[in-house]
């Protein structure tokens, strides 16, 4: 089990940058996800750590060992890196049974037969495949094949496990089940895991930290809570969960900063936290607020007034669309909220973030 360090890691194909200058330290025993839309560079970064892609610049350390450095001309091939990898399409060998698949890394490492058997059986019971040693891949379900792939990566006791969208080929129910199982296995054996996914719910549920990537660059690194509650930029805010963006205008006023909605009617200026900066002139910004953080109050109260355009009853909540001048925001309110369509209401925020 080891930490993994990426230093100024970049990868380009010709003119196109697929990974742009990533600096990252993954802690020992950590579960870290690379999250982002397709084409953001997450899989390429993972394949560079595995050794399948050669970086264009930068360095990779696994443990204390330098495994890849363009500057120092170091490149350790994948077979010598001691990383376990689980592929999206399982990559379970169809001509070998479960036992042979899982035992393969040990066979390469010339582990003795008795020890091999012990280790394989132990890891098979860990992934709940005991009793299936002699089955062939075509006799297994997709979920079981994925467990074989997982066992094959675990059995070699790797320094770090790399998982490339391992659940995306499974159906929704199985996916959720496997999430918890992978997380559980990681807790029990304490292996460092780097997990690639485009599914934010998956990343939120499993990760200690998430590295959010977009257009080859790091957008934010943080815990799931940090990414949700304190998004570093508009892309992060928009990618994780639901959010409303509203245009506001900031002015300095009485030793603080006050904000006003530009598009909404009857917007009352309200105090806002905006660093400690003094503003010399008016400034236009974007206020980001999650639907559950908007409070509906009586008209006249709150920061602005809006008109209810739509109301949908969803059981636990009411889902509102409220027109604030030319902008429409989405509000999730308790199902006891009394307001109805066409009513005028006041708007207040429990929590929000301002982006310049």
């Amino acid at each position: 089990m080891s930490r993994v360090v990426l230093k100024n890691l970049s990868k380009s194909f010709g003119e196109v940058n697929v990974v742009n200058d990533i600096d990252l330290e993954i802690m020992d025993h950590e579960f870290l996800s690379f999250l982002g839309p397709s084409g953001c560079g997450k899989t390429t970064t993972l394949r560079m750590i595995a050794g399948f892609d050669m970086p264009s610049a930068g360095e990779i350390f696994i443990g204390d060992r330098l495994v890849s450095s363009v500057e120092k001309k170091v490149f350790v091939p994948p077979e010598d890196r001691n990383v376990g990898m689980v592929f999206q399409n399982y990559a379970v060998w169809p001509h070998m049974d479960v036992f042979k698949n899982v035992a393969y890394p040990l066979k390469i490492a010339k582990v003795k037969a008795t020890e091999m058997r012990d280790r394989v059986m132990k890891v098979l019971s860990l992934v709940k495949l005991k009793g299936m040693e002699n089955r062939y891949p075509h006799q297994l379900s997709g979920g079981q094949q994925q467990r074989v792939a997982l066992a094959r990566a675990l059995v070699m006791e790797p320094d770090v496990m790399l998982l490339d969208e391992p659940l995306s080929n499974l159906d929704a129910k199985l996916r959720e089940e496997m999430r918890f199982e992978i997380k559980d296995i990681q807790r029990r054996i304490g292996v460092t895991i780097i997990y690639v996914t485009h599914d934010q719910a998956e990343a939120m549920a499993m990760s200690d930290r998430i590295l959010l990537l977009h257009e080859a660059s790091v957008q934010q690194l943080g815990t799931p809570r940090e990414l949700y509650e304190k998004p570093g930029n508009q892309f992060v805010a928009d990618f994780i969960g639901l959010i409303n963006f509203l245009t506001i205008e900031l002015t300095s006023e009485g030793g603080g900063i006050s904000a006003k909605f530009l598009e909404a009617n009857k917007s009352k200026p309200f105090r806002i936290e905006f660093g400690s900066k003094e503003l010399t002139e008016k400034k236009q910004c974007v206020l980001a607020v999650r639907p559950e953080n908007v409070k509906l109050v009586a008209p006249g109260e709150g920061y602005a007034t809006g008109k209810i355009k739509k109301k949908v009853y969803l059981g636990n909540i009411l889902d509102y669309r409220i027109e604030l001048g030319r902008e429409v925001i989405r509000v999730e309110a308790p199902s006891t909220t009394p307001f109805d369509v066409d009513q005028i209401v006041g708007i207040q925020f429990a929590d929000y973030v301002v982006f310049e």
Partner: protein
Amino acid sequence: MFQKRFRADPVILGSTFVIIAILIVFPFTLLFLNSLKVDGVFTLDNYSTVFQARRNYDALFNSLKLGFFTSLFSILLGAPLAWLVTRTNLPFAKLFKTLFILPYMIPPFVGAIAWSQLLNRRNGYINSWASSLFGLEGHLFDVNTMPGLIWVMTLYLYPFVFITVTGALERMDPTLEEAARTCGSKTLKIMKDITLPLVAPSIAGGALLVFASTIANFGIPALIGMQGRVYVLTTMIFSYMRSRGFTGIAMASSLSVMLMSISVGALLINNLYLKKKQYTLISGKSMRPTTLDLRRWKIPILIFALMVVFVTVIMPFFSITLTSFLDAWGAKITWDNLTLKNYRYILFEYALTKDAFKNSFLLAISAATICMILGSLIAYISVKTKIRGRKALEAVSQLPYAVPGTVVAISMILAWSGKYGINLYNTFWIILLAYIARYVAFAVRTTSASLEQIHPSLEEASRISGGSWLTSLKDIIIPLIRPGLVAGWFLIFMPTLRELTMSILLWGPKTVTIGVAVFEMQEAGYVQISAAFATLLLLIVIVGNLFVKWLTKGKAGI
């Protein structure tokens, strides 16, 4: 009920069944029955008579020997080449991939002519060159032997192994190999543990195709083997028909049934057993597999690859072209000995040429057109309807292509020589029927592949809009599969234009074809004239293939 639900024209569809019965089932049944009959009584006597003659026994043994060794050498040549172009950093790998398939495009009998010019023991180019260089007495090589046959056969049939193995390696999910690398395995070990076991069924499948094609081939053993008195089943059947005329047909039938059993057996093993073992290796993502760096072996291997192209394509092509310009065959190659008279002779003076071109073009155009119409109907019945017996219909339509052309020709002679009321022997029509029977399989395959792409709702939408079955076929289905139809037409036109195996058994005084003309000239010793003819044929094949490639945007042709 049926009519209301499908409204497919029962007359058109029904007659398809009848045509296939007359065209294929009837002649093949006759062939089978005829081999079991002596003077109208069922008996196995024919088979025991066959084996009383030592030469028949030798022919069978030679066929098996030739098939076995050709398959073996095709694996040894084809599989490594496939690995080189898909898994290493061999320079120009893409170009080589096309070049290694080229021999497949050359008609085998043209290849045989080239190699008998290069390696015949009296005055083969290589033999003469070797003896003048080393001052050898006599000859270095003799192509008219079993090893010579194996050599030429391998050069023209190894592409089967190359194509199937290249396909398997390209389709194989690269993560299967990457997974082994993360387990700590080195490249060569991965080849042994993962790659080779996964492509082994494809290698065996390609080799079985080579085996079946070798057994079925007529041109190469006829032009190379018969001169050295090396007979195989196809040439033995031919010599019975040629020397004894119609009376040889009993013997020919028995040998045909035997020939058919061997090649159908090989294809059945492939379809029933190996196809199942060919693991689904296809991945969703298309990633390039990591390639092996050949390092210091790069240049030697590149030279080897160039040698393969030189020997299989350039040398034979050069030999045929050179011979076609020679004034006197066997004399020294000097400027004085070069002439255009061979071309002048075949193009303007020799009446047979005109007949051959006229017949072959007429036959190829008619066969391709009729095959496409008939084949589309069969494919439609098989893919788009629920008519009982549709799968049997499709299977029967594939049969004549699975069996050797020699066998098809013998069945046609049995069926259409007047014994059952219609005598087409020695006419244009019997050749046409044979071509249609043999090549309708191509039409069915290309058309059903296109038809399977068409969702039933497209036709249903047309029916809902008020179109009849025939209107829907005309307005919806046919326009959608037109590219497949055109490609299929040319895939039949090209091989029928140069067909030899069946034509040689079926031609008459007025129905000489291109293949027959080249063959007969070569046999009669007019070497330069047959070379000129073969050169023209190669030109037609090349232009035709380029045209098909252009027409189908690279999807068909070689």
